[in-house]
């Protein structure tokens, strides 16, 4: 008990000492602590944005644009890192000696070199080794567009074809804060409805199999339900691809992925894939050999053994460390500042901080945002973990 009181007293003393110092320092500098600066015009531009933003918008909106950019890179990175990590982890266990060795090299090389080095290096390689937009010019250009003249890979970024709609539905404003394309909403609605119906069909087939022992042939219907309605919708909306074109010194049109985004994406997903591969490998090795042998003695083929016996058990071991890798990737995405990608560290913790001179508020807010993202991700993943966890009685 005494220890607790002493610890608490020590902690309180430390905190009050820090706060009193801060107040004293702020007084000397003539600053207060307030958040009104967030509502002043930001007067800087952000080159990568999903929602409307201009230099007249507020600092708060700039921070919001940055937050969206952080989430974009986090989601993109997590998806590719997981796919690559699972593939590499399984291949590393392959019986094929040369494949296993290549994967070991991959894992060791990416794990043992700092992620910041990978990011800066990838950025430098993209800038130095990709063709300049000017080389695409002329009748007999040095470089040409890829994939039937639709993708331009340049040292300023990559231009992808852009989905456009001949008779689109327009945008809808949400609370007057930002706008969402109705076409996208309609497309996603139809797609998810299709997936939902497809799941219903699967459930009915499962029920029938349980009852009669025969599984009706359903996969053509399931694919049709998911694929056909969106295609019809796209046709109705007059869907076409807007290709990037060289105008002046640069490409115009199309979806523009900046090099900073691509470098960050590649580097983060390669780096994290090495860690995920190790997690996957450890998870599979953690399933005891008896399980495989039992499955074989039941007459299951290797593929089915993997899918029905090994993976479901390995998943329980894999998911908790996988969550922390996703968190790491999200936190590492704050290194975007080193290649000039405008994520929330670059907006709120970078330019806003420098322009307003409010270090204290900006950095504390930045920390709070990251804390929120981390807690959010771990909450979602823990919920998922609890659904696959073994139900012990």
């Amino acid at each position, binding site marked *: 008990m005494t220890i607790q009181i002493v610890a608490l007293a020590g902690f309180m003393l430390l905190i009050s000492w820090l706060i009193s110092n801060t107040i004293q320092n702020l007084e000397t500098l003539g600053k207060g602590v307030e958040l009104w600066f967030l509502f002043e015009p930001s007067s800087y531009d952000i080159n990568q944005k999903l929602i409307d933003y201009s230099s007249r918008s507020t600092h708060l909106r700039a921070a919001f644009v940055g937050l969206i950019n952080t989430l974009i890179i986090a989601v993109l990175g997590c998806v590719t890192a997981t796919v690559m990590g699972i593939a590499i982890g399984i291949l590393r266990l392959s019986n094929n000696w*040369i494949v296993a060795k290549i994967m070991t090299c991959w894992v060791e090389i990416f794990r043992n070199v700092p992620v910041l080095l990978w990011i800066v290096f990838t950025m430098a390689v993209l800038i130095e080794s990709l063709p300049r937009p000017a080389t695409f010019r002329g009748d007999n250009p040095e470089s040409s567009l890829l994939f039937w003249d639709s993708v331009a890979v340049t040292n300023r970024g990559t231009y992808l074809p852009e989905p456009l709609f001949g008779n689109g539905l327009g945008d809808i404003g949400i609370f007057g804060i930002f706008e969402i394309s109705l076409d996208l909403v309609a497309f996603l609605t139809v797609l998810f409805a299709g997936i939902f119906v497809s799941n219903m069909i699967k459930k009915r087939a499962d029920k029938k199999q349980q009852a009669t022992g025969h599984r009706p042939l359903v996969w053509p219907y399931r694919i049709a339900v998911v694929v056909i309605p969106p295609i019809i919708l796209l046709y109705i909306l007059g869907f076409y691809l807007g290709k990037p074109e060289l105008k002046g010194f640069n490409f115009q049109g199309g979806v523009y992925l900046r090099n900073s985004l691509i470098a960050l994406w590649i580097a983060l997903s390669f780096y994290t894939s090495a860690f995920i591969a190790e997690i996957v490998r450890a998870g599979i090795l953690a399933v005891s050999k008896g399980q495989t042998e039992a499955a074989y003695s039941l007459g299951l083929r290797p593929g089915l053994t993997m899918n029905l016996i090994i993976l479901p058990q390995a998943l329980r071991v894999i998911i908790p460390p996988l969550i922390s890798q996703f968190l790491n990737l999200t936190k590492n995405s704050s290194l975007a500042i080193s290649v000039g990608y405008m994520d929330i*560290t670059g907006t709120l913790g970078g330019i806003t901080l420098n322009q307003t001179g409010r270090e204290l508020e900006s950095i504390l807010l930045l920390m709070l945002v990251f804390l929120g993202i981390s807690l959010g991700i771990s909450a979602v993943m823990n919920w998922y973990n609890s659904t696959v966890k073994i139900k012990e009685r």
Partner: protein
Amino acid sequence: MSDHSFVRTEMLGSQAPPMMEGSVLGWIRYNLFSGPLNSLLTIISGLLVVYLLAEILPWVFLSSWTATSLRECREVIPLTYGEGTTGACWAVIRERYLQLFYGFYPRELYWRVNLTFIMMLIALAPILFPKLPRQMLYFSGVYPFLGYWLLWGGTIWTPFLTLAGLIVGYLVFNFLNEKRGLLIGTIVGTLLIIFWFLFGVIPVSVFLSENVTPLAIEIVESEQFGGFTLSVIIGATGIAASLPIGILLALGRKSDLLIVKSLCVGFIEFIRGVPLITLLFVASTLLNYFLPPGTNFDIILRVVIMVTLFAAAYMAEVIRGGLAALPRGQYEAGDALGLDYWKSMRLIVLPQALKISIPGIVSTFIGLFKDTTLVSIIGLLDPIGLSRAIRSDTAWNGIVWELYAFVAAVFFVFCFAMSRYSIYLEKKLETGHR
């Protein structure tokens, strides 16, 4: 009795083993071409390896070591090795390797960095390899102060008095611990040390160096530190300091004391929830707000403190895993033997828990060492910061692969060595049961 013998009278000669068993051919057959899919994989990946080697090896070896700029490299290499050769320009490494290793440390004082590094290896040896004589640990204890003095220079009195303060504080703690109990001992000892650090060390060392003898070597400012020296300083200090703090945090998190527990949980979860870079921002801009007006202490020290706190939170989680993996019986056995909390932790629980968590601890160390590169974002000149500076030099503008390959290779050597050591340690400590 007929002459029917059912027992073989003469043995058959032994046959050669099947060709596919135990021979190189058999190994190839089983490991590379055991089926159509496997053969396809082998062929594809074999071609990939050959292609990569054919690209990389000429680039590495048909190179220039002597040029003075990237332009010169690009001219010299085709002249030497024939038209169309694009070799590496290792000349940039030859010209700048000293900078990449030592930063802007004064050239005539490099021996101090080298000596510190060698002494670090000597100080580490008894910790890493238990077979060495235990007396060497005294050197390991003195080393941080000696290393600090050698690297930053100045009078030896400051680190000496700091060390003396720690030793006296420990003696007072020991004395009071026996006479008055643990709590009083800890409080008085800690307060004594803090008081001595804040108000005693600097005046006394100034007094001693002015009135007795300076015993000083040339001072090197923190701005002159850089390159791998800086990475190793931050990394090694962080590693050494984060393990004990991490152990304390983990014990705090597992303890029954509600307030201590919630303080530890709050700290760990907060640190783990934010990226290191925001903590470094705190070190570079906010720490001045939090400390008494007028204090302005060294940027490297501020960074080391933040990196240590960051790594300690992760360390705490790793060790907590080890503590949780230990069977309850071990804790109960400690209690049943009549050991108090600290003794049962020190003698029974922690040795086993730490052994279980070695892989996690070492990978936290590796992560910490890699994370030292982040200091380039707040403007310190670690290898990545220096690479940026070199690349913006007109002579080397446009160089990418050579420079980053070199930096990456050095980091790889450090990190890979650490991971191999952890595997060695795991095998050595393996007792067959957990």
